[in-house]
């Protein structure tokens, strides 16, 4: 198959999106709750991922 290439942020986005959808589907019963939970989970994945990235930034030099 053709190798896939993504940037760090694109990988983070894909990972957060897929896992959030799965969490929302498995974790909640009503459709509106699923959407809310998936959106919340997606936002937290991004927020925590970017925050951890900035926290580690000084050590990359």
């Amino acid at each position: 198959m053709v190798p896939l290439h993504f940037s760090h942020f694109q990988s983070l986005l894909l990972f957060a999106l897929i896992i959030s959808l799965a969490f929302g589907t498995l974790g909640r019963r009503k459709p509106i709750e699923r959407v809310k939970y998936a959106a919340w989970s997606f936002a937290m994945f991004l927020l925590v991922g970017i925050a951890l990235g900035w926290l580690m930034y000084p050590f990359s030099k």
Partner: protein
Amino acid sequence: MFEENPANPVAAETNGSSAAAQSTGTSADTPNSATSGELSEAASPGNSGGEAPSAARTVAVALAGWLLPGLGHALLKMWGRALAIFLTVGFLVYLGAGMRGNVFEPGGEDAFARLGYVADAGTGSFYFVARALESAGPDVSHADGDYGTRFLATAGVLNLLAALHAYEAARGRKA
């Protein structure tokens, strides 16, 4: 997008229908307030007699869910969840293999390799799909390959979580 079987009380409740909640005398917002008998019957569509689900059946549901992602939920007629699990695990495996992540083999040299194999094997039959897709072998010298390894491991752990969820649903504990 995710239509569930309306004949299944659990599925109907999942869709937000209040009919199932009224028939069991429970609120859709408080599913855990139902008695264990109600939940057992609700979570086992083929168990119309109301008897407790057999241990063999619940284990079979969990094993089916592990072998083919989503199959455990499909056996319980929870179509939406079955499709979502199949697609998410399948997409993670496809991405992980496409990014040339490491698909660990059994009998790894260190604890990380053995743990990685356990995680990868969690995808069930998709483990062999990943190996077949990754014809060029892994390449973790770049970030893509490293991320691909995590995607594959996450797919396995997610599928194990889904199989456990199907097992619990078959037992009537939650759905």
